[in-house]
């Protein structure tokens, strides 16, 4: 379907793909290897590409030094709830933006685009004061609410693409059958949209999981910190302990890696159905 490939073309393709794979995977391999070296060996020279002795010392250190389990739990809760709620809310707005024409539509879409241009640091101070007034500083709910707001604009635009690719006829038929628009949305569109929804949720989850500056600003006590905040703490106080740092990095990457391994097909599939056609 894409045309026949010449032998030379095939060779170029394979070489390129292999090189890129090596380039992509190597940093991950290196951080894993670093984390598995005994703390003293990390700074031995020449560098060992395969450690002579494997050691879990860095991981032990990590959980001794800091309550890493708590950070992981916090991140998991915040990213899951915020990601799910943002996806749900964005479906509603995306649906309206895909199916109706109305005067304020382009203004709303512009407003969504502009949110992407706002540097977080202009809003951090006032946001902290706002959250203080709402008694939501140093509180997971507070961070969730803010993350939902952060996720909504891009998520809406993304889901709008999916809705536009689904023929109107589908829900019209359902509405003729006597369903309300809301039920039509859920009964008919939801199943069709599943890959898109999964993709949208993963985007939201990953964004929330990785967010640093808002979390550093809004979370104070150890019990409420998320993983990036904790990582940031490792690097800037005490000494840069590359051993436990690498162990922490591995733990940070793991959940999203599992998610990606499980859903990478959904992401492309989801995006394909939502791709803007030209």
């Amino acid at each position: 379907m894409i045309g026949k490939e010449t032998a030379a073309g095939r060779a170029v393709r394979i070489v390129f793909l292999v090189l890129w794979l090596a380039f992509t995977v190597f940093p991950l391999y290196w951080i894993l290897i670093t984390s598995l070296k005994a703390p003293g060996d990390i700074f031995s020279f020449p560098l060992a590409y395969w450690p002579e002795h494997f050691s879990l010392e860095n991981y032990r250190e990590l959980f001794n030094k800091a309550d890493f389990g708590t950070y992981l739990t916090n991140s998991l809760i915040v990213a899951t709830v915020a990601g799910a709620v943002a996806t749900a809310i964005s479906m509603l707005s995306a649906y309206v933006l895909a199916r109706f024409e109305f005067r304020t539509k382009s203004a709303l879409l512009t407003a969504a685009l502009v949110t992407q241009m706002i540097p977080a640091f202009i809003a951090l101070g006032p946001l902290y004061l706002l959250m203080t007034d709402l008694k939501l500083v140093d509180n997971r709910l507070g961070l969730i609410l803010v993350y939902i707001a952060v996720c909504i604009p891009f998520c809406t635009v993304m889901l709008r693409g999916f809705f536009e690719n689904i023929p109107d006829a589908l829900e019209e038929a359902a509405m003729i059958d006597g369903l309300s628009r809301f039920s039509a949305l859920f009964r008919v569109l939801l199943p069709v949209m599943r890959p898109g929804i999964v993709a949208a949720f993963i985007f939201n989850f990953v964004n929330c999981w990785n967010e640093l500056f808002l979390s550093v600003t809004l979370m104070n006590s150890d019990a409420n910190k998320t993983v990036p905040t904790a990582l940031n703490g490792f690097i800037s106080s005490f000494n840069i302990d590359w051993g436990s740092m690498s162990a922490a990095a591995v733990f940070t990457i793991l959940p999203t890696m599992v998610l990606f391994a499980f859903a990478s097909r959904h992401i492309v599939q989801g995006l394909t159905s939502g791709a803007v056609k030209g």
Partner: protein
Amino acid sequence: MPATSATTTGPKTSRPVRKQAAPRARNGPRGGRKREFTTRRGLLIAAFMAPAAIFVAVFTYYPMIAGSQMAFRHWDLNDLTDTSWVGLDNFHRVFSDPNWGTVLGNTGTWVIGSIVPQLVIGFALALWLRRRFRFRGVYQALIFFPWAISGFLIGILFRWMFNSEFGVVNDLLQKAGLIDEPVAWLADPHKAMIAVLIANTWYGVTFFAIMILAALQSVPDELYEAAALDGAGKARTLFQITIPYIRVTLVLTVLLRVIWIFNFPDLIFGMTGGGPNNETHIVTTWMIKITQQGDYGKASALGLLVIAGLLLFTVFFLLATREKREVRS
């Protein structure tokens, strides 16, 4: 219904119209199935839009606007006894700062130096991944993965690899015989910039690859078959069929990425912190530094400049790409 949503999506200002399927709307005359305005529809739009609008208004726009006013006041956490209005003084202070020129230049290097390799490699990957091969799923999962890592962590990861004493990059280069002695990557402004660009390429290719691959899969096979019948070569097919067909995706992805890369201090923050000698600062990392110094007035002025700059860019970019589209069709 709260005021915020009423003003943006209320029934009075909205005129719901049944939307045409996108391709038809572009070709044929509009409004073939235009429906009359009904309150019910207006309410539905308002109700569906309200949650999103409220969240974004309260937690994004309100703090942004509240922060913007500091740009016009003397607002320094080291001395809050005087927070009077100072007009454009903070903007003057930004422009007259000796770092401003460097920061601006770096931001340009950062955005262009990131977007070009990301787009080119991402496009190539997408083209090559279109073809089925064994383990394609696994391959995809592996190379898409950098996208799931936080920018800050990537900064730290690459900071460790580019460490001049114990970093693996120097070791590999030495083993390959490309350098004689360790290079102090992050201690030299130019080399540090190259290092952060490599890190950002590692991270950002994925997004292009995913988006372009998704778009490519929407190109109908008939188009390729027709091109093949016409005897079009590979290059011609690419430039005359594939690229025009996915142009909108390309334009929007590039636009979004430019905005995101511009507003992406995390990686540089983790990797060099803007150093050495403030020479790897981009606008947004510099803004972090100024905020940390407590000078909220100047930082907010910088923030407004970022928004204004990106808005201008967006308008120009969309205008430029729109014209081309008309010429082609």
